[in-house]
């Protein structure tokens, strides 16, 4: 049996705990470990398990929701969002691409890099790693 997916929070790290939660969830979605529709624990459960204030976890969930990575419904709880249909990719792939883009944007916002420099960095990275035959869809 696979071990359950877990979050790891370092309270001595420079990054605040809510940001660590947000970034790890985004990474788990991008890597495909958290699939669309997967239910996440409640704010209070995760806060109790991590020994954090409920507000800290609530802030992480709120930011994930604003980024479109998760959706919260009153009765169904918080679930990994199903990505909008992107024509070019299969749903799961589109979701992972969106999540990877979210993670990248969150990082450049934290580094206070402007949008033009961020886009230029993506273009440079794409030139350094040209698409191979396997990624031709």
């Amino acid at each position: 049996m696979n071990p359950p997916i877990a979050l790891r929070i370092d309270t001595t790290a420079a990054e605040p705990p809510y940001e660590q939660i947000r970034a790890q969830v985004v990474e788990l979605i991008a890597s495909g470990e958290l699939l669309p529709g997967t239910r996440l624990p409640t704010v209070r459960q995760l806060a109790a398990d991590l020994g954090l204030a409920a507000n800290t976890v609530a802030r992480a969930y709120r930011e994930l929701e604003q980024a479109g990575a998760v959706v919260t419904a009153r009765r169904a709880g918080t679930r990994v969002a199903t990505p909008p249909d992107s024509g070019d990719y299969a749903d799961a792939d589109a979701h992972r691409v969106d999540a990877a883009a979210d993670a990248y944007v969150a990082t450049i916002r934290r580094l206070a890099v402007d949008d033009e420099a961020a886009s230029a960095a993506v273009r440079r990275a794409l030139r350094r790693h040209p698409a191979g035959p396997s990624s031709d869809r």
Partner: protein
Amino acid sequence: MNAPLAVLGLIVLCALAAAVTVPALRRSRPDTDAAMTTDDATAAVARFLRAARWLAVPVAALVAVLAFTGLDDAGWLASVVFGALAVVMVVVLAEWSAPKPAPDAVRTAPLTPRDPHEYPGGRRLAVARGAVLFALAVCGLGIALGADDGRSVEVTCAAGAATASPFPGLAVVGPAMAGLVALLSVTEVALGRIARRPRRESAAADDALRSASAALVTRIVAAAGLLVAGAVCGLAAMQLRGLDGPCPAGWRSSAGVALAVLALAALGALGAVVADAVTARVRHTTTRV
């Protein structure tokens, strides 16, 4: 005594008794979590919860005695319900104040939600809820059939009238019904609290502790509901069938038989709940040996 005030007083008493006794249990043991191994820490939680369960027995007995003596005709049914309510409240407070993991700098938590209803199991939860709803329904029937005084049943016909008491009317079942509604609500709170108790590293042992607490809560709730339902049905059946007087038996006879069957069914189900508890206890003891 004013019944609504007495019921409110009993609910507050249940909460107060649990609030005073459970934290005392917590303070009596030094918090040595930081120096404990994972297994020791889980064992400490298990010991604390077990002690709280034993503590629930005298707390429930105290509340039951006060309900019995303070509520006149309604006391015998209310003592069962409020005794059960006290046990569930002790479990809520015990889960809330159980020793928590030491706050390390690096912490982990699974991203798997814990559903409050998964620990007692669907069947046990359905039995507990069904038992309470069944008890509420038969209490409602008793109120509908009872006379205006709320403690007798009266039948009138052209030839005269006949009365029998005690009968489970409003004065007899009212406080128990209020207690049953409170019991349903507190059960949901308890199951939520059991699921939310901070997780321990030893996942299997942690789940076993949650299941044990949830099973205790649902068994107590089911037993209280079935005991009340059985007692109300039995008393109503006895009084309806034994009602002497000039009026023909008519519907009373068939209603009495139906209520007697319901009483037997409730007591049979109560026996199954007790057997389930005993079997689990024996299995647990055998596993430990």
